[in-house]
C-alpha cells in the first residue's frame, strides 16, 4: 500500500510540474509577450513584475525563477489590480468554490449512486425506465441552460408565492447553496447513476450473490452487504474526473448565479487578460485536480483490498 501511495504521489507531482511548465510556455507564447511589453497597468506594477519575474533575463532563467516561486507557493501579483497578490485572490475566492463544489459532489454522489443502485434493483420496471430517461436528458442539456432555467423557475415561484422562497442569485447563507449545487451536480449525478446501474447489474449476475442468497440473506441484506460495495468500486475510480468536471462546471454556475467563487474570478481575469491571475489560477486548479485524482486513487485502494494489499499495475 505504501508503495502504491508513493507511486501515485510521485506521479501527481510530476504531473503538476508538467502543468506548471505548460502554463509558463503557453503564457510566453502570447503574441506580443505581455511580460515584455508595457501591457501592465502602471509603471510601478511593471517594475514590480520586472523584479519578481526577472523579465530582463533569458527565458530559461525566467522559467527557473517562476518554478522557484511556485515551489514557495507564490503566484505573484495581479496584472490589473495593483498590489493584490494572486495568493490572496485564491485564498479569498477559492473557499466559496470549494463549498459549492463539495455540496455539488455530495448531492451528485449520493443521488447518483443511490439512483443507479435502485434503478438496477428495479431493472426494466417503471422506476428504472423513468430514471434512465431522466438521466439521458440530464446528460444532454448543457449545465448553463439548466442553471438559467432553474433561476427562471425560482423567479416564477417567488413571484407566484409573493415571498422569496429561495434567493435567485448571490452568496451568503445556506439557502444560496442548494440550487446552484444541485444544478452543478446534476450532470455528474446522471453520469454516476448510469455507471452505478450498469455496475450494479453486472454485480447482480456474480456468483457470490447466488452464494449470499444460498446463505439465507434477504434481498436487502444482500444489496447492502454484498452488492453495494462491489458495485461502487468502478464508480469510485470515476470520481476523480467527476471532480474535475464539477470544478470547471463551477465556472458557469458561479457566473450565472453571481457567486463570488474562483471560477467566476478566473473568467473575469481572462476577459481582462490578467496574465498573472490566469497563470496562478490555472496552476492552482491544475494542482488541485491532480491532487484530487491522486486522493481518489488512494481511497480506491482502501476500498478494494486487491489494491490495498498488493499495489496495482494500473
Amino acid at each position, binding site marked *: 500500500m505504501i508503495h502504491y501511495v508513493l507511486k501515485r504521489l510521485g506521479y501527481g507531482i510530476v504531473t503538476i510540474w508538467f502543468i506548471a511548465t505548460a502554463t509558463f510556455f503557453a503564457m510566453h507564447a502570447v503574441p506580443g509577450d505581455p511580460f515584455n511589453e508595457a501591457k501592465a497597468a502602471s509603471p510601478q506594477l511593471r517594475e514590480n513584475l520586472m523584479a519578481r519575474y526577472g523579465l530582463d533575463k533569458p527565458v530559461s532563467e525566467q522559467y527557473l525563477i517562476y518554478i522557484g516561486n511556485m515551489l514557495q507557493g507564490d503566484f505573484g501579483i495581479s496584472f490589473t489590480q495593483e498590489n493584490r497578490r494572486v495568493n490572496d485572490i485564491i485564498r479569498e475566492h477559492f473557499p466559496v468554490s470549494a463549498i459549492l463544489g463539495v455540496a455539488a459532489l455530495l448531492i451528485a454522489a449520493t443521488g447518483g449512486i443511490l439512483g443507479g443502485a435502485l434503478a438496477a434493483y428495479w431493472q426494466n420496471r417503471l422506476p428504472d425506465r423513468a430514471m434512465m430517461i431522466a438521466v439521458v436528458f440530464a446528460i444532454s442539456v448543457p449545465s448553463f441552460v439548466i442553471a438559467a432555467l432553474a433561476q427562471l423557475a425560482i423567479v416564477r415561484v417567488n413571484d407566484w408565492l409573493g415571498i422569496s422562497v429561495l434567493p435567485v442569485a448571490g452568496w451568503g447563507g445556506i439557502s444560496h447553496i442548494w440550487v446552484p449545487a444541485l444544478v452543478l451536480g446534476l450532470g455528474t449525478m446522471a453520469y454516476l447513476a448510469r455507471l452505478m446501474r450498469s455496475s450494479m447489474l453486472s454485480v447482480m449476475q*456474480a*456468483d*457470490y450473490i*447466488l*452464494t*449470499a*442468497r*444460498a*446463505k*439465507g*440473506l*434477504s434481498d436487502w*441484506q444482500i444489496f447492502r*452487504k*454484498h452488492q453495494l*460495495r*462491489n458495485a461502487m*468500486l468502478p464508480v469510485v475510480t470515476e470520481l476523480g474526473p467527476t471532480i474535475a468536471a464539477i470544478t470547471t462546471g463551477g465556472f458557469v454556475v458561479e457566473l450565472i448565479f453571481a457567486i463570488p467563487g474562483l471560477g467566476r474570478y478566473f473568467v473575469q481575469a481572462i476577459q481582462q487578460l490578467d496574465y498573472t491571475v490566469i497563470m496562478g489560477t490555472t496552476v492552482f486548479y491544475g494542482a488541485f485536480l491532480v491532487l484530487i485524482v491522486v486522493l481518489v486513487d488512494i481511497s480506491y485502494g482502501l*476500498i*478494494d*483490498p*486487491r489494491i490495498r*494489499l498488493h499495489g496495482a499495475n494500473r
Partner: protein
Amino acid sequence: MTLVQVNDLNISLGGQHLVRSVDIELDKGECLALVGESGSGKSLTALSLMGLLPSNARVSQQTFQFEGQSLLHCSEDEWRQLRARRIAMIFQNPMTAMNPTMRIGDQIAEVLCLHTGLGRQQARSQSVALLERLGIVNASEKARQYPFEMSGGMLQRAVIAMAVACKPTLLIADEPTTALDATVQAEVLLLLRELCAEQGMGLLLITHDLAVVRRMAQRVAVMYAGQLVETGSLAAVFDSPGHPYTQALKAAMPNLSEQRDSLVSIAGTPPDLSKDITGCAFAPRCPKAMNICMRQPPLAFKPAQNQLAKCWLWAPECAS
C-alpha cells in the same frame, strides 16, 4: 429415512423446457450423484431444491418433501429460514463464489450470525474453528484474508466451511472440484465425505466426472436433456449401465489402466429443449436405437436390482 423427495419436477426458463419430469430421492447420510453433461438440467434441479431458481423460471412439481415437511408452497421468508440452516450449497468456482471485497472469516461469520444468533465476536472465533476443522493451517490468520489472497483449494475449503457452518442436513455440491487442480480435488472430496459421515448430512453431488462419482456416491442418477435416464446404486450403474447414454458416458471416461488409441466421444448434439420431444431424447444419438424409440418415450424398466433405466431395450417385449 428419506431426507428429500421430489416427484415430477419441471422447470422452464426462457421458453425452454429444461428439466422434464425429474424425480429425486435422497436418504439421510446418503450421497446421491447427479450426473450429466452441461446443459442437462442438473444445476437447475439443484437450485430448485434451495428455492434459488431465477425469478423468470417456471417450476412445478407433484411432491416436494424435505424432512417430512412439504415445501411445495414455501414462501421466500420460509426459504430463507431453510437455506444454510438445513439445506446448504457449494458452488463450482470458489474464486467467484466468494465476495471479493469481504474477508473470508467475515463471510463465514455472516452465516453464523444470521442463523445461530451468535454475536459478531463469537461468530468470528467459531468461523476460525471451522476453518481449522476443515484442515486450514493458520486459520485465524487466513480468516482475515481476502479471497484473492488464497489458493483455489483453500478457498473451496472456506466455501465448504461456510456451507456446513450451521450443520445442515442436506448439502448440495454443484461441481465442487471442477475448478480445482487434480491433487486438490482428492483432498476436497475426502473432506466432503468425512463431513457427511460426521454430521450425517445427505449429499447431493452434481458432477459430470464419473471418477468423482465412483469415489463419493452410493447412488447415481444420470440426466440427459432434462430427463433422468437412469438411476441406481453405484455398483449397478457403474458395472452394468442400463441406458446406452450411461454406457456411452462410461466409455468416454478416460481410463489410465486401459490403453486406448483415442478418446471416445458421443456423436451428435443434445436436442433442442425449446421443442417437444417425441420418443426418447437420446434416440438420435443412440447406437442401439430402435423404431419405437423415435415414437414412444421410454418407460422405466428394471435391468437389475437397485437399478432403473428409461430405455426400451429393457422392455420385456424386446427380445435379445
